[in-house]
């Protein structure tokens, strides 16, 4: 939608911050919220998948923070094909029934009981941060992964508006024709940073950006300092910590906070809260910043909403790349993921039903900060933008916007 720049929230907007977490589906994290807000397209409890015996297994609110989704559920292209179409080899015109998740997880260990865990979802009390943000700001009912595949190619859409024809995590996009959003911002005299957690976690964006433009990067500590010093760039992208490791600087234990299975989900909740608090608690940042919290892909975990078709991005992945009988024309999206837009200019309890995916991120940032920019993928050019939801006529008051107290371990 065309942005109304007369909106007070837009007149004040100086910073866009995107935090992209890992590998959890919408229903798994936010599905239970349908009971609190019927507009949220979550779970009624009757959704099910057949298991390998043919039994119909219903979704259950039994998700735990850790140890259930081990082994890591398969989320490569062919496995996601099975999850969506109930067939690992063929996609459309088969109907997208979303009935293949349990079978897909069964394939990994041949364990019938364990395969049911893929249908488990969190009760809201277990996710105080995500639940609070979803209920107090704007939740997207229709934010999908950009492709039905794994992390690195999905994250590419957030940086480039395309994955340059990749559906796997192979090395790619060196010397490609579309510039990353960071290059565009710098060329247009805007500031931007891609903040990874620390050097030991680093970035998933290594083959092009870290290799060629290392100055675009900073650490999470840099982000916190920038918030404190009112020196936040115009656009920031934040990556969580991808590993349990000892800090390269201090030797202290640093727990993974990306929520990728089998990392403890609570660490990710604390990380999200830390990012939010850094903005929320700075009175010079809070009125002027839009924060998008989104997940890169569903991680092989159940969601009940069939992904829609989308504008192709001009690339084709061959069957040898997809691992199925079909070529992939980047004309349909991946599985739904949690996405929440945070700002004091967003109506409390908003539920957004337009279709979004990760190409909407560079589309939004380009539209807002740069303006007309034709040299982008067709997917990105057609993508919706999200800043128009900063639509309140007056900013919400202090007491109307939550904050978090992060417990130390």
């Amino acid at each position, binding site marked *: 939608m065309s942005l109304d720049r007369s909106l007070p929230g837009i007149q004040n907007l100086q910073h866009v911050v995107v935090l992209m977490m890992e590998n959890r589906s919408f229903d798994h994290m936010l599905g239970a919220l349908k009971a609190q807000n019927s507009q949220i397209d979550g779970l009624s409890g009757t959704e099910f998948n057949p298991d390998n015996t043919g039994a119909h297994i219903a979704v259950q609110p039994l998700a735990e923070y850790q140890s259930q989704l081990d082994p890591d559920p398969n989320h490569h292209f062919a496995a996601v094909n099975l999850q969506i179409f109930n067939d690992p080899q063929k996609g459309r015109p088969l109907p997208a029934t979303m009935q293949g998740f349990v079978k897909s997880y069964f394939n990994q260990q041949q364990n019938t009981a364990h395969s049911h865990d893929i249908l488990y979802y969190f009760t809201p009390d277990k996710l105080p941060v995500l639940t609070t943000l979803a209920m107090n700001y704007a939740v997207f009912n229709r934010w999908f992964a950009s492709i039905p595949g794994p*992390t690195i190619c999905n994250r590419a859409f957030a940086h480039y508006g395309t994955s340059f024809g990749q559906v796997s995590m192979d090395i790619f996009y060196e010397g490609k024709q579309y510039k990353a959003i960071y290059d565009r911002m710098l*060329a247009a*005299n805007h500031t931007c940073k891609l903040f990874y957690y620390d050097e*030991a976690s680093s970035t998933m964006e290594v083959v092009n950006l870290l290799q060629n433009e290392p100055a675009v990067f*900073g650490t999470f500590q*840099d982000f916190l300092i920038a918030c404190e010093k009112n020196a936040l760039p115009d656009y920031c992208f934040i990556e969580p910590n*991808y*590993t*349990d490791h000892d800090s390269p600087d201090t030797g202290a234990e640093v727990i993974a906070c990306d929520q990728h299975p089998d990392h403890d989900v609570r660490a990710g909740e604390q990380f999200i809260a830390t990012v939010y608090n850094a903005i929320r608690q700075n009175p010079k940042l809070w009125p002027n910043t839009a924060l998008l919290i989104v997940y890169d892909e569903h991680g092989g975990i159940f969601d009940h909403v069939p992904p829609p078709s989308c504008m192709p991005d001009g690339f084709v992945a061959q069957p040898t790349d997809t691992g199925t009988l079909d070529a992939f024309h980047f004309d349909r999206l991946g599985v739904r993921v949690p996405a929440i837009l945070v700002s004091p200019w967003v109506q409390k309890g908003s539920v957004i039903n337009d279709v979004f995916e990760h190409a909407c991120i560079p589309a939004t940032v380009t539209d807002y900060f740069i303006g007309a920019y034709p040299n982008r993928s067709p997917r990105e050019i057609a993508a919706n933008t999200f800043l128009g939801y900063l639509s309140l006529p007056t900013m919400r008051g202090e007491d109307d916007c939550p904050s978090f107290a992060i417990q130390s*371990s």
Partner: protein
Amino acid sequence: MEPIVVPAPPKSSFNKNRRVSDLLLAQVKHFQHVAHKQGMQIDPALERDLASEAGVARYIARVTREMRAQATPSVIAMPSPKPAAAAPQPEVVEEMAATQAPAASPSKPRAKKPKKGKMAK
């Protein structure tokens, strides 16, 4: 509104010896590609110890530091977009500094009047 308490994971959640996921294996592969392409001299012991999250983290830290150290002024200087105006000299983008002066708050949307010559520091 009282702050909402966010509990910490127990210490037992931390497992740096956890076997690496496909994602981390792919990340390592990407790092190895760049390290080899740039002729980096990486301790072979680091390259052998990639089965656990801790081992991957050590390797990635080493290569990341090497790549960040390559951030030189010539790589990151910006050309002036409006040569007709009295454009400022391109500024060197340095490591994010805690002493960076705050940017002036614009009174109009950024898309209409982008700031000139200001680089992220």
